[in-house]
C-alpha cells in the first residue's frame, strides 16, 4: 500500500518518540497481546527508544505458540492415519509434539500440505476425492471467519471429504485468565489490531473496566505503535482509564458484523486448551452439530491424548508475560530456530523467535 511509507517516515516518528518520553510520568508495564505486534516492535527497533520506566512484555497472542502439546500430538496422530491428508498453515509444520513434529511425520510418509488459505484446503479436497482432507484450524478471530466461510462453501457444494479440526481461540478470554493472576502486574494493553477489526474495539471495554486496565487498539506501523503507546501512557498518567482506538483505518467500535455472523452460523463457544494457560472455559470455538460432518473430531472420533510440554521449555511462562526468553536456559543454546524445542521459537510470531532474530542489542 503506497501510504505505508508515510507511516514510517522519520519526520513523523521522531516527534512521536519525543512525545512518548513526555507522556510517561510513572513506571508502567504494557503487554502487547499480539504476536504480530511483538515482531513489528522488534523489527522497528522500538524497544531501544522506549523511555525509562516503560516496559513492554509479550502476551499470549501467537496462535501457534498457544496451541497445546495435546493438540499437536492429536494433529500428528491424525496425519499418520491412512486415507487422511492434513492441511496446515506453514508455521505449524516444525512445532515439536511429544515425540515428533508434523515435519517428521511428513518425511516418514504422512500426507501434509502447507496452504495459504482454508479455501486452498477445500480445493485439495476436490482434487483428491478418495482422501479425507483435514484443515487444522489454529488461530484467533482473524482466521475463524475465513474457516467458517470455507465450511459453508463445502456445505453448499456438498463436499463430503473435507473436515476442520478446530482449535480456534477467542481473544478477550485468556486475558481475563491472565489478569486474575496477582503475580502479573500489567498497567496497559496494546490490543491486537486485526483481531479487533473483527470483534470491534468495544470488545475490550469490560476488561478495561473490570481490571482498571488501559486499553489501546494498535496498528502495526511504527507511527501506529508509537501513537498507541503515547495514548496508553497518557491514560495511565492521568488515571483516565478507557478503551481507545488508535487504528481507526482498520478497526471500528462494533467490528466486522458480516464476519461475526458467518462465525456464529458455523461455530459455538467451547472450552479450549491453551499452552501455558490450561483449559479456559468458553475460550474457543467448535463446529455446531448442524455442520458435524465437517468436524474432524466427530468424523475421526478423536480424543485428545495426554501430552507433556517439551522438557525445560518455558514457553508457557513466556506466553503469560512472566519470563522473557533470555531467562530460559535453552534459549539460543539447545533451542534455536534451526533446532526448536518449543513453539515460541518455531513460529514467525513467537517471542523466542523475535528475541533470537532481533534481540541481541536489547
Amino acid at each position, binding site marked *: 500500500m503506497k501510504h505505508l511509507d508515510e*507511516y514510517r517516515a522519520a519526520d513523523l516518528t521522531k516527534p512521536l518518540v519525543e*512525545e512518548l518520553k513526555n507522556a510517561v510520568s510513572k513506571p508502567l508495564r504494557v503487554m502487547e497481546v499480539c504476536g504480530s505486534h511483538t515482531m513489528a516492535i522488534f523489527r522497528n527497533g522500538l524497544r531501544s527508544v522506549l523511555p525509562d520506566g516503560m516496559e513492554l512484555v509479550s502476551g499470549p497472542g501467537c496462535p501457534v505458540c498457544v496451541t497445546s502439546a495435546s493438540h499437536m500430538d492429536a494433529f500428528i496422530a491424525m496425519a499418520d492415519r491412512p486415507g487422511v491428508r492434513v492441511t496446515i498453515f506453514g508455521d505449524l509444520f516444525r512445532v515439536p509434539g511429544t515425540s515428533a513434529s508434523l515435519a517428521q511425520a511428513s518425511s516418514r510418509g504422512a500426507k501434509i500440505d502447507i496452504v*495459504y488459505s482454508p479455501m486452498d484446503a477445500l480445493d485439495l479436497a476436490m482434487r483428491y476425492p478418495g482422501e479425507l482432507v483435514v484443515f487444522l484450524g489454529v488461530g484467533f478471530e482473524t482466521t475463524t*471467519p475465513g474457516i467458517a466461510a470455507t465450511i459453508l462453501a463445502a456445505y453448499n457444494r456438498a463436499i463430503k471429504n473435507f473436515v476442520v479440526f478446530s482449535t480456534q481461540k477467542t481473544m478477550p478470554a485468556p486475558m481475563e485468565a491472565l489478569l486474575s493472576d496477582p503475580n502479573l502486574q500489567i498497567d496497559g494493553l496494546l490490543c491486537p489490531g486485526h483481531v479487533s477489526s473483527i470483534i470491534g474495539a468495544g470488545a475490550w471495554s469490560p476488561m478495561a473496566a473490570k481490571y482498571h486496565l488501559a486499553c489501546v487498539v494498535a496498528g502495526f506501523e511504527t507511527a501506529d505503535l508509537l501513537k498507541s503507546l503515547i495514548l496508553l501512557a497518557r491514560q495511565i498518567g492521568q488515571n483516565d482509564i478507557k478503551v481507545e482506538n488508535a487504528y481507526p*483505518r482498520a478497526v471500528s467500535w462494533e*467490528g466486522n458484523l458480516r*464476519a461475526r455472523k458467518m462465525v456464529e452460523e458455523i461455530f459455538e463457544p467451547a472450552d479450549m486448551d491453551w499452552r501455558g494457560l490450561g483449559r479456559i472455559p468458553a475460550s474457543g470455538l467448535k463446529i455446531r452439530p448442524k455442520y458435524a460432518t465437517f468436524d474432524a473430531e466427530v468424523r475421526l472420533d478423536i480424543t485428545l491424548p495426554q501430552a507433556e510440554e517439551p522438557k525445560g521449555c518455558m514457553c508457557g511462562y513466556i506466553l503469560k508475560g512472566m519470563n522473557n526468553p533470555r531467562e530460559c536456559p535453552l534459549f539460543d543454546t539447545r533451542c534455536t530456530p534451526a533446532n526448536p524445542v518449543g513453539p515460541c521459537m518455531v513460529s514467525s*510470531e513467537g517471542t523466542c523467535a523475535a528475541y533470537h532474530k532481533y534481540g541481541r542489542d536489547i
Partner: protein
Amino acid sequence: MCLAIPMRVTRVQGDPDDFTSNQVATVDTDGISKEVRLDIVDQWPSVGDYVIIHAGFAIHSLVEEEALKNIALLRELSENTPEELLS
C-alpha cells in the same frame, strides 16, 4: 501468520447479499495481482479501494481518504509536541 496485508482492489465479482455467488476481488500490490475472497469483508469494496487480507480472505475495506485521514491525525499528534523537545 496473523499478518494482514492491505492491497488495492482492481476488480470485484459476485453479489454481496448472495453467499452462494462467487464473491471474489482481484487485488494488486507491487504489480502482483491475485484473487481474494469477499465472503467476510465488512464492507463490499469498489475498484480503487484497499482491502486488508487475512489468509486469502478480505476482512476490511478502506477507501483512500480513510488512510490519508489517519496520517493527518498522526501528524496533528506530533505537532502538539513542544518545540524544545524536538531539538
